[in-house]
């Protein structure tokens, strides 16, 4: 097998998208080129200094063909020098429990795919699909076609909304009937067919808790607000983690915000408002929104997580 050349792979992908033209590429603003570059840089098989001019060049080539999907390289915003523990809150009520836990270590390549799919800063209605990243990582030999995690991705693909993971053939094995053990619990709950179908109860729950620093991140949650269509948490983050490098689009956060309830539902949050810092650096404060909360839920567990660890915030409802 010839040695993998990441720059050549990226350039060939750019060529393919140019040839495909606007008719194909406009289906998804976040194209395979962006996903591939991000994945290969994140897994350290492609030098960002090599990737940036390639993406810049294809950004112009796309624009000249009416395919304005990616913009040139942007410098990373300044990151916090260190993750400062946040000011303690006055506990609002009893019963709210905060802890942290380490996560099962995954390969950087697999972790990148899951993180890409659960990026909480991605508020685009056409989110990343993971396809471009997965193809690139397979080509680079960083993921094996026999990797059991691929079955998990296939199951999620088969049970997700089409816009989250486009149902294209060829890049994953067939989705198994039952969820493999490697499907992360959050995705299992998110794809159970119920999440997103609820009419929530209107209420506001004061939370007022601060997590310990986990994997370089500290989070304070102030309030939880439920409405018929969504629920949202007001939070503040402090982190010294770098964003995951992406050019031409907002950098991707090292943190994703999951939630689950005691009814086996899972929810994936995304930023709707942010001030003072950078959500892609998990720094600042803002509002993270989820689909409507199951009105029958008696407990909600917020699970902000990095690739290595997460906080567990149990909130009685």
């Amino acid at each position, binding site marked *: 097998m010839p040695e993998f*050349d990441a*720059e*050549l792979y990226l*350039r*060939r992908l*750019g*060529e*393919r998208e*140019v*040839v*495909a*033209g606007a008719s*194909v590429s406009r289906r998804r603003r976040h194209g395979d080129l962006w996903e591939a570059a991000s994945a290969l840089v994140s897994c350290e098989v492609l030098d960002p200094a090599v990737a940036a001019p390639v993406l*810049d*060049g*294809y*950004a*112009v*080539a796309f*624009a*000249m*063909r*009416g395919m*304005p999907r990616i*913009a*040139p390289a942007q410098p990373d915003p300044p990151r916090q020098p260190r993750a400062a523990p946040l000011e303690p809150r006055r506990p609002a009520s009893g019963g709210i429990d905060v802890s942290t836990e380490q996560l099962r270590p995954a390969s950087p390549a697999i972790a990148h795919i899951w993180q890409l799919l659960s990026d909480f800063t991605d508020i685009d209605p056409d989110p990343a699909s993971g396809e471009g990243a997965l193809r690139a990582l397979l080509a680079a030999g960083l993921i094996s076609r026999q990797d059991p995690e691929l079955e998990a991705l296939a199951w999620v693909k088969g049970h997700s909304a089409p816009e989250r993971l486009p149902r294209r053939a060829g890049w994953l094995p067939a989705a198994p009937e039952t969820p493999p053990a490697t499907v992360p619990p959050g995705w299992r709950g998110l794809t159970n067919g119920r999440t997103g179908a609820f009419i929530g109860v209107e209420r506001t729950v004061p939370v007022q808790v601060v997590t310990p620093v986990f994997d370089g991140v500290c989070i304070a949650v102030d309030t939880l607000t439920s409405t018929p269509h969504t629920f949202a948490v007001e939070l503040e983050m402090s982190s010294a983690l770098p964003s995951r490098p992406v050019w*031409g689009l907002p950098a991707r956060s090292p943190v994703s915000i999951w939630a689950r309830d005691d009814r086996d539902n899972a929810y994936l949050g995304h930023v709707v408002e942010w001030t003072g810092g950078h959500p892609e650096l998990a720094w600042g404060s803002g509002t993270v929104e989820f689909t409507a909360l199951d009105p029958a839920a008696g407990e909600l567990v917020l699970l902000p997580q990095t690739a290595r660890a997460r906080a567990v915030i149990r909130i009685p409802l």
Partner: protein
Amino acid sequence: VSASWFSELAPVTAAIQCGADTHTVLWRDGVFSTPDHADPESERALAALAGEPCGCIELLDAWERHATDPLVLMLGPRDREALEPRDRVIWGLRVTPTGASRARGSVAPEAAAPTDALDRLLCLTGEIPRRYVATVADALAGRDDPALAISLEAALYGRLGASLRRWSGQIRWFGLEMSDGEPSLTRDPEWNLLAATLPFSWMTEVWGRGVDVVDDELTLSAHRGSTGTLTLLTVDHALVTHTRTRAGV
């Protein structure tokens, strides 16, 4: 510049706006020229003194300035698609040169940059942009630079991809080995993909001549004989090769 790839090609022209007038630019025998400006050097001096750029001379200068620039291969046409200067496209919105229209503040810096004459050169209607890409490819061929070789292989991949698309009607993945060995197009049984072996000179000898798809066959190589006839090695949809001769292009 080798003469072989373009010597039998007919001259091509394009009309451009030059000041208040419509002028013609000409490609003939590998040379780009501005027939409406008999003395480009004097025109340059005059334009500099008057502070008013001359559209024709700007294109002429761009042609020379980027004559060995791999960016031409990246931005230029893969087939015969219509291109548009980058400063008129901002996130899909057509904008005025002053940038009066903005899309949610998401203005890409490159898109807001002043129009480069290279863009206008590559966006000319007709065959001139394709001839320019082939000219630059010819100038870069054979250079002993591993970093450049990756750009050249990608450029070849894109042009072959466009030709395959027109030939087969499909956008497809395919394998490419850029090699000076025997040109071929086969099917890789392991991946069920088309696999091509082509030299970089395919960009000029075949694509530059515009004989990449002839009579519903894909051309793998083209050589001009001493009698002026063009000998093509082609492949049909069953991947059977044929040798064809043509009087010219």
